[in-house]
């Protein structure tokens, strides 16, 4: 893909409790692989992938973070400038769902923008022992104005969709990614004045 075809580069974060499958989701999305022995992320890692959504080709730099509490003093510095975030929980572990509020809080504190697009992903739906229902996830997502999908990095279910919908929403959000090239809603003062001069007797007789 030639560089000039790329609309923009977006920074996407993946956050959530440790062991919910953040790195596996990412690997499934970027390399379409799944490794049951995916090692625990230390600090942050990232992958790059170019995708086309609605005819717009965007490059994604996806930052994968470690979920351990101790790393939480380290990872938020990499939240800076992200336009989208994927917040992951494990549908088979209720406590990973219960911690979502904390993660949102974290995001609010450290992300440098307030209009960041958020996607909630319930991972590991391939497993049988489900502790968090789809409705619960959906309700939470609604309450916090997030996108929502259930997925399985193992079976591929919903993974592609999660990233695509997120990107779609980001591209549609004005002011989130475009630079101030020709700003919408801006107005030029100078031209107008020239026009007025042409109305030679603009102010009555005098």
């Amino acid at each position: 893909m030639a560089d000039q075809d790329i609309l923009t580069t977006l920074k996407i974060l993946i956050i959530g409790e440790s062991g919910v499958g953040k790195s596996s989701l990412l690997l499934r999305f970027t390399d379409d692989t799944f490794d049951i022995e995916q090692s625990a992320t230390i600090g942050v890692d990232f992958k790059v992938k170019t995708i086309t959504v609605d005819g717009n080709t965007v490059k994604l730099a996806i930052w994968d973070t470690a979920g351990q509490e101790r790393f939480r003093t380290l990872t938020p510095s990499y939240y800076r400038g992200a336009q989208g975030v994927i917040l992951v929980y494990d549908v088979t572990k209720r406590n990973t769902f219960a911690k979502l509020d904390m993660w949102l809080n974290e995001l609010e504190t450290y992300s440098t923008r307030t209009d960041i697009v958020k996607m909630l992903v319930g991972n590991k739906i391939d497993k049988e022992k489900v502790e968090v229902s789809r409705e619960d996830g959906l309700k939470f997502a609604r309450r916090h104005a997030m996108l929502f999908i259930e997925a399985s990095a193992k079976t591929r279910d919903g993974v592609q969709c999660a990233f695509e919908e997120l990107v779609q929403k980001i591209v549609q959000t004005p002011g989130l990614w475009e630079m101030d090239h020709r700003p919408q809603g801006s107005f030029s003062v100078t031209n107008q004045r020239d026009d007025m001069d042409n109305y030679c007797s603009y102010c009555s007789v005098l």
Partner: protein
Amino acid sequence: MTHHSIVSETVESPPDEPEPSTDFDDEEAEKLPKALEDMMNRENDFPARAHCLVRWYGLREFVTICPSNPNHPIMSPSKAKLLLSSATIAANNTNCQVPIFVQVLWPNEKMYLGVGLGSGVRTDYDMVHFRQAPPQCTHLTGLLDVFKNKLQCCVTSPPVLVSVRFTYVLTEWPHTLWTQQPPDFDATLTEVGFSDLGKLPFGALSDPVSELHLSATWPCVTEDVLVDSDVYSDLDPGSAPLWTARLVTSTSQPCLLSEYLTDFIHVCRNNQSISQILGPDYTQDVDGEIAEFSSALDRLTEPSVPSLSSVVGRVRKGHKGARKFVSAQSGENSPIPTDILIPILNYLFPDAEGDDPSDPYPSTLTQVPEWLAPNGEAADHPLKALLSNMKSSGVDGLVWRLAVVLCHVAHSLGGLPAAAHLWHEVILELRFRWDHAVLIPGVSSGVPDLASTILHQKFQMLNCCINRRKAREQSSSSKSSNEDGDDEDEFYECDEDMEEDEKSNGSRSSWDKPEGRIKRCAKLRLLKTNEPLYIPFTQEPAPMTEDRLEEHAGVLLRLGTDALGSQLRARMMSASLLSDMESFKAANPSAVLEDFVRWYSPRDWIEEEGSDPNQPPQGSLSTRMQIPGNMWREVWTNAKPVPARRQKRLFDDTREAEQVLHWLASLGPGSLCCNLLPTATHASLCRLAEERLLFDLPAPSSLPQPCHSSSLATVLDVITQRAVRLSRQPPDTNKYQELAEQIAEVEVCVARAQSVRHKILGDAARAEGSSQHLEELVLRLLDSPEVSLEGGPRGPAALAVRKLFQQARKASLLLDDSPQDDFSLPEHRQSYGNSGHSGAVSELGKPMGREYLLRTLVPFPTAYSRPVPHRMFAVLLPNEFRLTGAFSQDTTFS
């Protein structure tokens, strides 16, 4: 003969009129051309704002032909005739009914010759233009004679319809002198103190409203109703049925706020360093400065002496650089004199003034200033939601004050050299504070806030360093008695108290005695020994400013996305993991990786159910932790039991602080201002919002309505949105310049409104319940080009306008009298004015402009021709007389 001079043809249609429809029915073929209808249409008599041809001929659609180069006008009558006849032929051939005009003579004379064809009628548009009006043309009677002579019409013809308008001009505002303070900053600074320092100025430098025009109009009456000759006239403005008022505003009005901002942006465009601007005397000693530890706490313990001299003394004795400054100062060379510099520095660093500074920083920094609703209650700032996304720094914090002060400096205290000088002094002060471990005031606490500007982050970083250093020095001084502090600086120090631990573990051999414990980790016990599991003191991760973070992320990115890159990244990131593992090992000497994981990543420990709580639990690591050679295991193997305080520091405050100071010192005043641009804009927007009047005003017609809304507040919103967007991008002075121009536009509007309000409402503007209709009048005057005064000459609006004229007249008559005497007069005059017309004439003075419009419908050129419209328009100004005529002739029955 060539047509070299013809280039532009523009179809002009008056702004308010929709494009006339062009379809032409056969049935209506006999109808007069549109142009002639317009000529006779009374609706278009005295347009508020239009092309001069609209005014003179009442046309709504026409074509003008003008020379492309205004310096080569069409001077010869023959060429003009040629052009006009060519146009006539063209119009004939194309059946064009739109009148065509040729501009002749110099453009500023506005001379046009024109012709219009259609429906068997030819109309010639002609005009004469003199400096002085011929005597017979100075009154209605004379003009009527001219008109009738031209048409050679008999007395029995239908009467001529006459419209007259007299315009009176008010240019003097004796009772409302322009109150804007001149920006004499030096005077206010040295005499009054520095109360103005923290505020950006606002408003127009001179009165943005230059004239008020009052027009008395007699619209369309028959010729015999009005008498106006050289000896008698009953054209008394007081009896005119229609009064209209119009404001004339000065163009390109300089306004203080936008001028300051523009000058600030001007400084931004410079990319010289301080020493390039000010010479080698102002070189910063970035590397060679040796901290004077002996006096480290002097300033903290020093009794506060709030006098300025002590501050000067403090600055001078503090560091080498300042002494250099003083020496330069002695030669009177420094751009900012000391007596001005000291208040500025005190304003930026108020804690240096002593315990009771005159301008302390707010305790918490917010994105918008406090806002009071009209009823005096605290409310949300109107820009709060928008500005919360602004990458700037808190209101009235150090960065904010620096931006505001630099605006003053750039505008009125010497520009670029002065900015360089001030920045030099600020850097010296910052270095002094680092050297003496004194926190920088007016900066948000905590680690660098990435949502603020880089400058603010750097200050925060410096404060982080100062805090770490203070903590380090405190603990080293408190423990120096029982520890050999030879290489203190090399190690991280924690404020732990280990004596208890030492006692409880007295039996252990010294090499593996536990160190650096905070507390027990719940009820967890070590797997092997069943001892309690302790949480260790750990090192805080290094705070980073966004530029360092970017560098760091850049390094991570460069490692690539393959497996090797991931592994290298993990290795880089593992420094903090290693540090934590070493601390853990030190606190729990007999721990294994499983114990560490139970504390650090509990979900990776899978415990078997039903184990005895008093026995070491049974379980295993998760599969991912069991992968042979995985990073966690590897790091664990390499970790030595070292408590955090003896580990190599992850955060080297000395090095970081020096880096920050170096970064700051390497900023020239231009780059400094570039970094302050978002904050300066932020401050300007908040300054605009302080003008409450803004929120009542309509958007000016000079600005295209940005979002189909007509209030000035929405214009401010749009500007703010753009500022927020720009604040997140690398500073671009051109874009900020555009923004400054937009801010200027809003500022002019507000200043104009203030001026008009002040004039019309006078002191009542401040009084409660000032009359509603006058407020409305103010808004309408600002909003529309021309306002018809409700109730004519006797309406309340007219009274207010009359009052202004009376005051001006009175003042011009009694030049030497003190103006206070006149306060009772307006009412007096008003009653007088109402009682008799003669008084009203004098109260408005002589009309500056008189316009007479005559028109009729008579057969021409012969008595048996069709009646065709004719129109004559005369304008009489003090130094100009123009008579324009549109005379038609029936080409069929001639």
